């Protein structure tokens, strides 16, 4: 009788392990970050790409209801793909579009803007990538939607597309 109970317990235990591991097999092994956590924007100090003057984040995120912070670089190919979307977003007057130039040569960044157009109200630089990491960025391009309370309300990882444009427009409504 005791052996039977032990045997049943062992079988149950192995079934339990099998179910847990089998369920785990179906999970994606690619890390999917949380894009909806409402974190407060960190305070940072940066430089304007053109004037090279030092700017504090408090001076950037002021006076608008929504801000879009787009992390980009001239060497990043997906950034070229999303550029037309940013040009469309520029037309929306209720938002302030800020470009954060990530680990880039300033001359190349300026050439990129001259070639494809400037969708940004302001371009600030992140020469060593520290600001992007402190913001919680994974790579580029990446776009943060920030409200007037300086809360990051949505994060778009990767290039913006028509779907993300619709999502942004919905948020801004």
């Amino acid at each position, binding site marked *: 009788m005791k052996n039977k109970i032990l045997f049943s317990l062992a079988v149950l235990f192995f079934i339990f392990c099998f179910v*847990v591991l089998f369920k785990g097999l179906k999970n994606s092994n690619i*890390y999917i*970050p*949380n894009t909806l956590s409402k*974190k407060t924007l960190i305070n940072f100090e940066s430089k304007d790409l053109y004037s090279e003057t030092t700017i504090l984040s408090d001076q950037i995120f002021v006076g608008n209801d929504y801000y879009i912070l787009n992390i980009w670089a001239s060497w990043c190919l997906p950034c070229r793909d999303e550029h037309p979307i940013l040009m469309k977003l520029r037309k929306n007057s209720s938002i302030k579009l800020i470009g954060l130039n990530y*680990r880039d040569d300033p001359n190349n960044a300026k050439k990129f803007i001259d070639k494809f157009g400037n969708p940004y109200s302001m371009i600030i630089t992140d020469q*060593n*990538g*520290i600001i*992007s*990491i*402190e*913001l*919680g960025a*994974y*790579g580029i391009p990446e776009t943060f939607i920030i409200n007037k309370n300086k809360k990051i309300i949505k994060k778009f990882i990767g290039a913006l597309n028509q779907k993300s444009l619709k999502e942004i427009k919905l948020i801004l409504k």
Partner: protein
Amino acid sequence: MKLLKNFVLFFIILNFVQITSAENNVELKNKISKNIRCLICQGQSVYDSQSDFAISIKLVIEKKLDEGLNENEIYEFLKNQYGQWITYDPEFNKNTFILWTLPILLFFIGGAIILRKLIV
């Protein structure tokens, strides 16, 4: 002459303290970066990776150490920005309780079986 000797001695001690402190910071930076996962790499720590993400994380660790944050505060900062997954040391929570409790459970079950065999 004595004043000069004292000055030289003070200068040497000061340099030694600075060098030791810098070495400690480098060691701590390496230790922390070994415990941080490179989120965009396949199975590499930030210490091992040369990706832009890892290089920037290393710079952030260095900056935070210079600001006077300790090891745990740096882990907390990174967990706050990137979630629990960034560290190689999973916390005990509803997603990891099997990971933490199963080995202990198996240890006790095994121990009980061995003990039973020994007694019988």
